[in-house]
């Protein structure tokens, strides 16, 4: 017989071992779908790997895709630390994209434009995140439901804008007019799409780690999440911490949208985000809500997404495999997390 036993502490190597085990389990489980599609599992995963990390150009493409998920991953990680259940990173990203695109379309010197785009995008994301937080603090509305519903509201608002008053009169398609050329984020390596925003994302992760681990606000966020009663008893204004967390989380998700507008698409369209906001939840959980872990977790999901498209072209397996991998990875990681709380003990038949 085996039984679960409560564990009091977890060894440090768990931080790395658990996500790796979850990813390995995910790839094994999803190989069944590749086989069902009639392709060779080894070939399919091989193409995915080489197309996403096989050469320097592929690596830059993967990093470009990882950038928005680093931001949404950080947004979710920060929010979940305070147990503010922000499932609205998708809508906050879209709001950030719209705001930064509107600012980027105004003629002004490039560096100033980029700075203002970032500020506008972060502010828009923060404003959207403030809605579920305020509803929770003031009206006791469940933040999960309101942030999910808000995603639909923001998406349709964006669609109404680009189908209506904001429609690009030049192309006639439902896309916004492009931002000024001078506002396009500089490309760091000639011949690739690796833009300034990717570096900003990579810097944002250690900054968030510092904020959570070493500052007073970070301490308040952690205490509020772990034990709101103790936080209140210790003189922490829990409601205020929740609102601050929402602003921070929303701003981070908004920056994901800024990077997509300034560095990748240069305008806003309906499919500017293939669900990066929801992927942020997977990223944050794989990282165990540690901002430093968000970077490798986002790169993993980005590699799966970039690789899945190449795999689909080479083997005919639908690229939607990457969506299944994301969902499976999240569930596998949750199961893996059980081992942080429990250990499996073999017990004798007599006990």
């Amino acid at each position: 017989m085996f039984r679960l036993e409560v564990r009091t502490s977890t060894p440090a190597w768990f931080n790395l071992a658990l996500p790796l085990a979850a990813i390995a389990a995910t790839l094994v489980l999803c190989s069944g779908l590749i086989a069902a599609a009639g392709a060779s599992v080894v070939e399919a995963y091989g193409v995915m790997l080489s197309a996403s990390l096989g050469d320097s150009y592929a690596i830059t493409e993967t990093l470009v895709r990882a950038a928005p998920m680093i931001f949404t991953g950080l947004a979710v990680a920060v929010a979940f630390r305070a147990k503010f259940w922000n499932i609205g990173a998708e809508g906050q990203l879209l709001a950030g994209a719209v705001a930064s695109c509107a600012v980027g379309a105004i003629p002004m010197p490039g560096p100033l434009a980029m700075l203002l785009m970032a500020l506008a995008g972060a502010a828009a994301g923060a404003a959207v995140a403030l809605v579920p937080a305020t509803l929770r603090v003031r009206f006791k509305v469940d933040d999960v439901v309101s942030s999910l519903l808000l995603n639909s509201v923001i998406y349709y608002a964006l669609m109404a804008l680009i189908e209506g008053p904001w429609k690009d009169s030049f192309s006639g398609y439902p896309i916004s007019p492009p931002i000024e050329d001078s506002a396009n984020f500089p490309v760091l390596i000639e011949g690739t799409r690796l833009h300034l925003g990717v570096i900003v994302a990579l810097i944002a992760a250690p900054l968030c780690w510092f904020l959570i681990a070493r500052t007073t606000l970070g301490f308040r966020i952690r205490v509020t999440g772990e034990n709101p009663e103790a936080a209140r008893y210790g003189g922490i204004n829990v409601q205020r911490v929740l609102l601050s967390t929402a602003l921070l989380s929303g701003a981070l998700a908004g920056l994901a949208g800024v990077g997509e507008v300034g560095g990748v698409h240069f305008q806003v369209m309906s499919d500017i985000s293939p669900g990066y906001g929801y992927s942020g939840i997977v990223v944050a959980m794989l990282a165990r809500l540690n901002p430093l872990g968000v970077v490798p977790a986002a790169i993993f999901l980005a590699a799966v997404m970039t690789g899945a498209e190449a795999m689909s072209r080479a083997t005919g397996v639908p690229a939607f495999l990457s969506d299944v991998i994301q969902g499976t990875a999240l569930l596998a990681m949750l199961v893996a997390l059980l081992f942080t709380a429990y250990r499996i003990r073999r017990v004798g038949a007599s006990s």
Partner: protein
Amino acid sequence: MSAVLEQIFQVGFLAAIIRIATPLAFATLGEMFSERAGVLNLGIEGIMLLSAMAGFTAASLSGSLWLGVLVAVLTGALMGALHALFTVALGLSQHVCGIGVTLFSSGLAYFLYRLIFGQQSVPPSIKGFETQPIPLLSDIPVIGPAVFNQFTLVYFAIVAIPLSAFVLYRTPWGLSVRMVGENPRAADSAGVSVIATRFQAVILGGALMGLAGAFLTMAQFNAFTFGVVSGRGWVAIALVVFGRWDPWRSAGAALLFAFVDALQLRMQASGLGHIPYEAFLMLPFIFTIVAMAFMSRNAVAPSALLKPFRREER
């Protein structure tokens, strides 16, 4: 303006409300059973999508719509069991597991649909259910054609509401569900298996969500598209709160939402063409958020909602 109002309030409009409310009623009742047993199921959006796809595929390949409905219901029940495995048996976070189940089910639905049907320029469609007028009742003026000249699945929904209330409030199993959702410790002392009851409630809930998915692809749209659910699952979760975890009130909430949705559909069609139709699509969602703000302060959720139960931890 009066012409617009005239166009809005007519038999067709009432019938549209009933039609829009039907999948929401199934989904809301499903979520309600799950939550009454103490399990929030955020997998609902994905479960509806996967069931809609599975039912459509089965109906399309076999030619039998009722086989499609059965497959959709079984798919929903299976995914409910998966959610229960994670949240009830393993006691993992209901919030995050639900999102995981939604991401997994949606991904699987997209993947399998593309695998089975390939990429076609015109999405494949089926000949869906036809309306079945009920003799005599359908002759009642206004109400008759609106309510009693509908798809059979609509009548299922109308029956499901009192049936759910009966099961929840008048049967021993319903009592067990309410007990494990309010006070699992006491239920356990009284000899009720908390784990088994929660599993059953979440699986029943999943089956009802599957029925909602079946209605979408086999009666309402007669095709599967990636946006066929488009937030209806999330709305159902809000409607459960709005309906205060009661079958009658939840069904009423579904009707109210359907009224707003039907209204915005009419507004799209009635001479307000210079406004992009997406602006109207926002309305039901904004309405739901505002309604939640008014209702949530006094809403009393099942006490053990979100709390896993482990017998050995006292």
